[in-house]
């Protein structure tokens, strides 16, 4: 039994740690600012970081494939999807057409980058950098200024609070549910399907995965398509919560997202980690932001310094764990 516990801790250490860090950060915050003890503040994390959670889920899967796997285009896709959907809605296109169209756009965009990475043997960094430029650039071509959304369906989805049962006056929006649902779907995908296990196998050792006869090429393209899908969802959620679309939206989100994934215990070398840790990575990010908001006098740049420091701590812990794992 003791052996089992040790195994479990060694295997899932970094992820568990991200959970503990989240609890600590949140606890510290609520000691400093008692207002943070309100349940609504906790649920606000899901409202505010809905898009970040979505893109980070996709990012986690991409990073898990290893071999330098990374998706820098996520923020760009959010900008593109928000602008494109705002423009389409302004042109009077039915929102029930726009949403699926945007999702298809995201998937196609991701698949294109995956194809370039797999078959033109381009570094993921470079290929997705092109994706970032392309997505933001096209967003600016669609409109140089922010496009507001007046569509009643969007408005309704964006502004209808869902009151949580059993709690008084605690609500979330429909858009904040997309992330958690996606999280469940991704947990299923990563642990219980061949697609997911192939991702882990590739991240562990891509050469072996090829020799084991796993469909590496297909999986790689699919994983970028999946990330594109998540980013498209993120873009739709983003445009709903702000009721606008703009090429400048979500600038720098790729960084926040990578940081969240790393804080969540996923190794950038691939093969180790999971999306549950990423959830805590995102929540930690959100908590830091809310603490700063509660403080009021501390300026926003402390968020960045804080996130940077936390990334450092997370990496330090990870490397200690890998050392331990190697030794045992």
């Amino acid at each position, binding site marked *: 039994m003791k052996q089992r516990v040790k195994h479990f801790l060694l295997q899932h250490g970094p992820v568990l740690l991200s959970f503990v860090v989240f609890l600590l950060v949140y606890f510290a915050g609520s000691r400093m600012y008692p207002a943070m003890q309100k349940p609504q503040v906790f649920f606000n994390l899901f409202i505010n970081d809905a898009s970040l959670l979505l893109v980070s889920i996709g990012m986690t899967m991409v990073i898990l494939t290893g071999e330098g796997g990374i998706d820098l285009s996520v923020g760009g896709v959010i900008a593109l999807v928000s602008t494109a959907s705002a423009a389409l809605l302004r042109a009077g296109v039915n929102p029930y057409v726009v949403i699926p169209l945007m999702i298809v756009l995201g998937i196609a965009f991701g698949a294109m980058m995956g194809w370039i990475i797999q078959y*033109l*043997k381009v570094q993921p960094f*470079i290929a997705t950098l092109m994706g970032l430029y392309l997505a933001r*650039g096209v967003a*600016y071509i669609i409109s140089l200024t922010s496009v507001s959304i007046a569509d009643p369906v969007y408005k309704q989805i964006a502004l209808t609070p869902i009151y949580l049962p059993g709690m008084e006056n605690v609500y979330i929006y429909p858009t904040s549910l997309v992330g958690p649902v996606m999280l469940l779907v991704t947990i299923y995908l990563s642990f219980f399907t061949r697609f997911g296990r192939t991702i882990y196998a590739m991240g562990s050792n891509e050469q072996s995965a090829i020799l084991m006869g796993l469909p590496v090429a297909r999986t790689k393209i699919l994983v970028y398509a999946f990330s594109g899908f998540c980013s498209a969802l993120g873009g739709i959620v983003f445009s709903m919560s702000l009721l606008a679309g703009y090429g400048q939206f979500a600038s720098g989100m790729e960084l926040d997202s990578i940081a969240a994934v790393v804080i969540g215990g996923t190794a950038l070398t691939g093969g180790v980690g999971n999306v549950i840790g990423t959830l805590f990575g995102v929540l930690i990010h959100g908590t830091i932001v809310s603490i700063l908001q509660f403080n009021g006098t501390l300026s926003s740049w402390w968020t960045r310094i804080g996130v940077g420091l936390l990334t450092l701590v997370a*990496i330090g812990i990870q490397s200690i764990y890998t050392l331990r794992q190697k030794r045992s």
Partner: protein
Amino acid sequence: MKQTSFFRRIRDSRLFWPLAAWFIILAFNAIVMPDFFKVDIMDDPVYGKHFYGNIIDIFNNGAPLILVSIGMTLVIATGGVDLSVGAVIAISAAMGTVLINPALGNELIENRILTENTTRTPLPIIILADLAAGAACGLWNGLLVSRAKIQPMVATLILMVAGRGIAQLITNGQIMTIYYTPYFWFGNGYILYLPVSIYIVAVVCIIAWLLVRKTSIGLFTESVGTNATATYYSGINEKNVKLLAYTFCGICAAIAGLIFSSYVHSADGNNNGLYYELDAILAVVIGGTLMSGGRFSILASVVGAVIIWTFTVTVYSLGVPGQALLAAKAVLVMLVILLYSDYSRRLISRLFERKGSKHEAAS
């Protein structure tokens, strides 16, 4: 026979591909916009007579990127990458501005003090402080990579995220405007009709070249990037080689930040040097250095950076709105990807081979 080897030598040279790409863009400009290459002499009331034109703009505006690309080349050659250069540019710019007038960050001071054409710190000390800040940032990255053995992408990501926060911390979150005119000289001044920034780039280039080719640092760097273990076994302190590369890169970024803030007369922690890390990596890749490390050429990376700015200036001259520049840049990256992919390389190699064998038959 000689001609074959001549062709092959040109084709195999590291500069061939970047230069070819540059000439393609220039040729395009020559056809579409004959005015593109026009260089006038302008008489500026402040800076005196100097050349003026697109070509000058490319080098003047591109100077910060060229500088960063030089540093990035060394880092990538060791098998690493430095994502923090954009943030270091912002830190350096913020440092310089704050040292000129520490009151700039404080809104409560009356306007007159803010707009004074004076400095609280002598200019040489500002420059030294900037360089020291850049070196410190580079040293931090280098220590994380070489001593703490953190993957370069993650190690430098930390400063990339935190660095912009630090820059804003220095400027107290303000976009600071500089009114001290001697400071403008780096980004706007001219020596012998040419922008000062070109001379700075040339000096850094020469220093880098001397360091790399006249000492054993270049050999050690390429060796570390190809096989770090074998390098260590050969008695080379591979950690210090990496440390040096990151520190040098930090210093290059600091100089770039100095020129940048001087050119725009202000410092903005959020936007100074935005996307420079990506452009610099792109420049190095265009220059033919592999992201896995090993062989590198500083000159090729400089050409890579010049290509990016030639492209940028071209796009502007074509009248494309600035905001759509990103999409145009994506097209550039796409072209680079296609041009550099194994498939097209093989295709072009085959074309050359055929040409070569023809010569061979003739001689």
